């Protein structure tokens, strides 16, 4: 398709071509997934570039990719294959959570693939594990097994 061709479809026609409801097409334009049309209100026209973007979005949403993520992908973010190993010298932003004085957990949820919920559960597990370990020094060791279970569930996450 020649992307240089002057845009020629009104929104309704573009929607038919992309096999999406007009409202959804307009929604994608409004949230910035699809580029704005050329021309004012009634004269607004869309072209091959817009159609291409729409088809790409349709493919990704069908595969269950969230709109936020699609926005990143369309705007030059890395492809949805998370790199296994980080290059030396690369920089990432992580959260540092203080469990106790001298103990800190560093989490990069993006890379760990953890949902906020899972992160919280994990931290709760760490907290109880810490408390259990503290208690164990005094001879008591009640809480440890429960944590093991929790960690197991955590472990299921890629």
């Amino acid at each position, binding site marked *: 398709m020649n992307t240089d061709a002057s845009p020629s479809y009104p929104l309704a026609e573009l929607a038919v071509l992309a096999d999406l409801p007009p*409202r959804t097409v307009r*929604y994608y334009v409004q949230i910035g997934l699809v580029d704005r049309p050329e021309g004012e209100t009634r004269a*607004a026209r869309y072209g091959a570039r817009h159609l291409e973007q729409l088809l790409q979005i349709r493919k990704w949403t069908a595969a269950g990719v969230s709109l936020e993520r699609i926005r990143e992908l369309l705007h030059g973010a890395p492809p949805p294959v998370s790199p296994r190993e980080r290059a030396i010298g690369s920089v990432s932003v992580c959260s540092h959570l203080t469990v106790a004085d001298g103990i800190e957990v560093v989490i990069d949820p993006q890379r760990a693939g953890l949902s906020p919920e899972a992160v919280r559960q994990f931290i709760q597990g760490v907290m109880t594990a810490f408390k259990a370990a503290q208690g164990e020094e005094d001879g008591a060791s009640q809480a440890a097994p429960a944590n093991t279970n929790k960690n197991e569930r955590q472990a299921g996450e890629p």
Partner: protein
Amino acid sequence: MQQQSARLETRAGQALTFKGARFEGSLRGTLFEANLEQRFANPFDRHVELVYTFPLPWAAVLLGVEVQIGDRCLSGAVVEKKQAEQGYEDALAEGNTAILLEQSFDGSYTLNLGNLAPGETCVVRLRYAQVLQFEQHGLRLVVPTVIAPRYGDPVADAGLKPHQLVEHDLMVVHPFELSLRVEGALARARIGSPSHPLSMRLEGEGETTAMVVSLARGGCLDRDFILVLDEVAQDSLALCAQDTQHPGAVSVLASFCPRVPASAHPLAVKILVDCSGSMQGDSIAAARRALQAIVAGLREGERFSLSRFGSTVEHRSRALWRTSPATRLAGQRWAAQLQADLGGTEMEKALDSTLALAGDASVSPGAGEGAAPVDLLLITDGQIHAIERTVAKARALGHRVFVVGIGSAPAEGVLRRLADETGGACDFVAPGEAVEPAVLRMFARLRSQRMASLDLVWPAGAKPVWMSALPGSVFDGDAVTVWARFAQVPDGTVRLVGTRAHAEAPESLGEASLTAAEHDSALSRMAVAAQIETLLAAEGAHSRQALELAVAYQLVSPLTHFLLVETRAEADKPADMPDLVKVPSMLPAGFGGLGSLDFCIDPCMAPLSVNEAPEHYGSPAAASGAYLDFDDPFDAPMVLRSGRRADHGDTANKAGTYDIPAFLRRSSNQDGWQPPRDDPRYWCAEPHYTGLTPLGLTQWLRSHPQAEWPQGYAELRRIGLGAAVLDWLEFVLAEGEGESLVVACFVQVMAQRDLHEALLSDTGALGRLKVLAQRVAPGAALKVRQDDPAAASILARLQVFVSTLRAERWPDCVFALQEGASALEQSGVGVG
């Protein structure tokens, strides 16, 4: 990127587009009429399109929409969905102002305010009505204010369009005002609210008495408003209302308060608790309290099972337990340990798995005397998108589903449908509300006499043109509401009759004489709305008749939308498409453990809790649902799966960073052999039991020196013995004896060399184990305090227990929390 900046402003609270909601209502008898006023403004310097998705109460019928833009009052019409959408798009393309109110199949409403000019304000007034249902001698009025984040894919599962999705924002605050008039006899009821502090004032005297209820403190749209009216005299009634379209025709609302005797059958119930992430915090605490109350309220001889679900399902028992002191204790312990840590909300899978729990008389002997059908009791917040699939699944189960809805904004629609379509019932507990009354009400329903069939007897000669379906079951004190439409005014008495399962003659459950209604138009249109709902359920979205009725009676439905278009002067028209501003919803109070209505917020948790909604997770893994996938054991490296170091195993140590340096390891009993978790002979991982198998335990004991053997329940748990076996030891075997003695006896018996070998070669060699058990004379090979008579008794019972052991599974008596001897008979029956 103007869009982005608009959102940022909103988050900072500087430029709110939604100014708040005002709610007015009046309750007369069981008819509740309400006005909901929503105020919007465009604080930006460009034209915007505001989109706001909000809930209306379950079974509420939207009767009218009024819009005021600036100081211009406008009115629109209800038209067919396609036409409305087209009209809205056209209006926006032309640069005109348009307002579209959509109803989705999940019952939520989406308001679209297209092309609101800079600085313009808009007030939308919605008028709706609903008929409240008496439940166990009380009325509960719920005004939902927010849709909570739900689990699942809103587009694929719930059929929502992308613009209709609810976005939640932790930072926004939407004020909410409320004023209610409770009129007539109800004004003298006991009135309270578990959700908001109220201020109340009595107005008028005699016939015109009304109780005016308002919020004592400013409210927010972050929790359902609940008004509970207690100690109300309830009556059956039948009201006739003139049809608004066809003169002479009438619509009838008949409401009965049936009297149903208690059932003679003992109760049998499978309890399923939602432990998904959205239950975190207040909700799971309420679920725990509810379960404690349920387990305590079960009577001897009744049967129950306990399961919890999230992404996966865990059952506490393999079959239904008979209520006994032991099972009650085990149940209460299980309830006390409940955590909302199972991830997603796979309700369908959970219903399936729970159904598969053995519940027949053949598995639990002694239930032969009038084996009652098994019911399902679900404790959940109902926050799922896959509503249709789940309801269809529940219907196919064949169990009645009873629901206790929990949380500050439970998904009432889903839960009501689950209960109604399976012949069960639904009850709700708000955070901070006592759960015991709800549990007691549930027990009253569960123990209520079942009716095989229900019928409505109209006065002689009167035949309805259409009548709503009768519920699948009736419960003592729960109102039964029926809508009907007649071509001519019927006169006389209408009766509700029911027939018991094995009875010949039907018995009368309630009757009411037909009287003319005061509020004609509301009632007749509500009857039509009920008919549309029935048609939609039967024929789906293509029902021609439903569409025609909805347009004729101007009712907003999933097939019809409200549309209003205002033509603007050319000069006022924008040059461009309006910016989209989605009105974010507040996060329901206490949702997902985000703060608590019971306790204060733990400061160290707060920053982690933002963005609870499953649909918000942006990572590709999240998008594909992989982060919730606990099913596939190969997802995780071995070292993580075991939850313990597996560096003794043969798996390559892929995740080296997770390993703990040797000097940090606990050097006690875990350095010896560890059971391989992927070998089913040693380690069992099933919904009802996760932990060491009998063979796994004997192997562990053989590979560790006696000095390291467990001496208490906690140590047994640490080496990997599952909760079921531990509870059996503590509640059944111990019979009041001390922990150390019981554990010592158990460990000694399990450590016998012969037993290990027998289990190792176990190919169904039950006979060999029996011989073995006879050889083990009390205390012969065991060095446990032989002189202790208590030990002798325990050992004797353990012998019986050992003789039923299989390599890979613990005997049924463990899961049924029964004495070994009776279980032996059972398994004998099973094998023979």
